[in-house]
């Protein structure tokens, strides 16, 4: 990807054009850049903040998610990642700043409200019910029905078929949609949750640390499904503390530290090394590396 900063990554990738067939106009006037763009970002927050009692959990954080793009939110524990997700997913209202959906101010009463407006959040632990089958989990809360009145019933055959098709079209290979969710691997469970959000018409997909508890191979599988969702035109917010997971897939990187933004970078504006170094607090990592290096050979200290 060699586009200059500010050029939507879609054009370079040849993904689905966000605003229909017309050519995309990019920042005709740099001074009022976002107003001149053909399609506003799907979701944007400007200088949002949140305090809990005396604790400032988040201050002056801005970011956005565009159609067909992945915005990665990186930060160590306690950096404010979860507070930001809760604001984005409609669980908390921000105390300050703006929340824009398709360029218009938005406020949600509940996560369900946000879900109805196309913002789906997949939490690491709350994603699924382990004792229930894959297809029952998939349609939980939005079961398709047949018939009416007292004969209204869960369209079981249809549900099974749709789940099988949806998973296959995402390239998720689960042999048996009847098996309990708990028997799937962590990566598979995240993947099914992503497929579910895509099926129910999510436009923005917020993923809370989907790779953090996974092994290397399983994390790779989940990253592949995130790419699938992106290629279908969804905007993805990918929360992680692992720059090696974020860098290959992200188009935009928001770094958080102690509740404030360390900066937002386009892919062209940052290298993997810089990202890793920023994540670890730059000089802190160097000092640590130095410290560990020195300790390795005991050297002449022994007589």
């Amino acid at each position, binding site marked *: 990807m060699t586009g200059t900063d500010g050029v939507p990554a879609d054009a370079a990738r040849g993904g689905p054009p966000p605003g229909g067939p017309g050519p995309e106009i990019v920042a005709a006037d740099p001074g009022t850049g976002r107003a001149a763009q053909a399609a506003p970002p799907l979701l944007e927050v400007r200088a949002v903040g949140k305090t809990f009692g005396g604790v400032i959990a988040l201050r002056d954080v801005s970011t956005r998610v565009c159609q067909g793009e992945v915005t990665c939110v990186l930060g160590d524990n306690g950096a404010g990642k979860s507070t930001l997700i809760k604001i984005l997913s409609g669980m908390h209202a921000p105390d300050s700043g703006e929340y824009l959906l398709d360029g218009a101010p938005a406020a949600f009463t509940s996560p369900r409200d946000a879900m109805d407006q196309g913002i789906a959040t997949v939490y690491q632990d709350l994603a699924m019910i382990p004792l229930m089958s894959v297809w029952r989990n998939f349609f939980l809360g939005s079961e398709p029905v047949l018939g009416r009145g007292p004969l209204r019933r869960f369209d079981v055959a249809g549900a099974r078929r749709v789940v099988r098709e949806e998973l296959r079209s995402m390239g998720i290979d689960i*042999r048996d949609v009847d098996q309990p969710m708990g028997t799937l691997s962590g990566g598979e469970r995240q993947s099914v949750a992503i497929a579910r959000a895509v099926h129910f018409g999510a436009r923005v997909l917020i993923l809370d640390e989907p790779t953090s508890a996974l092994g290397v191979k399983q994390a790779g599988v989940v990253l592949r499904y995130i790419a699938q969702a992106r290629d279908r035109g969804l905007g993805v917010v990918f929360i992680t503390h692992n720059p090696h997971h974020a860098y290959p897939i992200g188009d935009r990187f928001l770094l958080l530290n102690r509740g404030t933004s360390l900066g937002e970078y386009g892919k062209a504006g940052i290298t993997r090394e810089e990202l890793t170094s920023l994540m670890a607090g730059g000089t802190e990592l160097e000092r640590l590396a130095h410290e560990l290096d020195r300790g390795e050979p005991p050297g002449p200290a022994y007589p």
Partner: protein
Amino acid sequence: MTVADERLARTGAARRLLVRPELGAVVGAVAVFAFFASQSATFRSIEGVANWLDPASTLGIMAVAIALLMIGGEFDLSAGVLTGTTGLIMVILATRYGLSVWTAMLVSLAAALLVGFLNGLIVVRTGLPSFIVTLGTFLMLQGVNLGVTKALTGTVQVGGLRGAEGYEGARALLAGTVQVGGTDFRVAVLWWLGVTALATWVLMRTRAGNRIFAVGGDARAARAAGVPAERTKIALFMTAAVAAWLVGSILALRFTSVQANSGIGQEFVYIIAAVIGGCLLTGGYGSAIGAAIGAVIFGMADKGIVFAGWDADWFTFFLGAMLLLATLANRLVRRYAEEVRR
């Protein structure tokens, strides 16, 4: 691109059959039947079958309703004594206040729905364990049953339903008999089969069923998926109360009188039958058919011990052993189903 996990190959057809919740109950029922049938010719005759299906039916209606509630993650210890309360309300109203049996049944249904609603409301609003909440309701109803009955009649039972208006019709509907192959079966058996079929349909083939499994499996995750967890749980408590009303009415019409202490001690029998039928004590898993079969095991053991000419005192020993075996089997199922692979 194939991401099939090679470790999934273990899921064979046999294994899938093994995780059916009813399996343990079916195996148990076959074993218990074979055992008593070999001991007593009466037990295996058609009259014998009609005989042990009778206790199985009234117990089964309750066990199925309690199974739904347990799949939804809650208990109801007040369900047993509520069968007494509803029966008492009906008989008292029909014999002392001149209401017809039908009207009296409607009033007792309303009372049962109220008790179920309050049980559910307190549980979902306070977040207290339903075990404690319904234990409280159980003790309160026990006191009311005794206190009101004694105050009205001076004794611990109310009777005389036979003379009440509408008795014959209600009795035919709920407490009569039907002839099958020359043998009289209690009509309650049909109610039991109907309740089991309806509950199975709701569980497996409706939205409500999916939500019952979900609120019992993980109420927080269910809520995150948009399931109205509170409403689902309250509805389950009310369902258990309606079942108690049905059984209370059946028993009252059959005996034409109700003891003030009737139903006490039954609440655990319902739970045991549901657990033998494959319900997990922790919720989210189980089956209505399994609970119905659990009730059959009870009926067979209850009458079989008598037919075989044994001391009926051994019944509870048998009960405890069945319960332990069933719980062990369920634990294996759960461990399999919840096995997390990363």
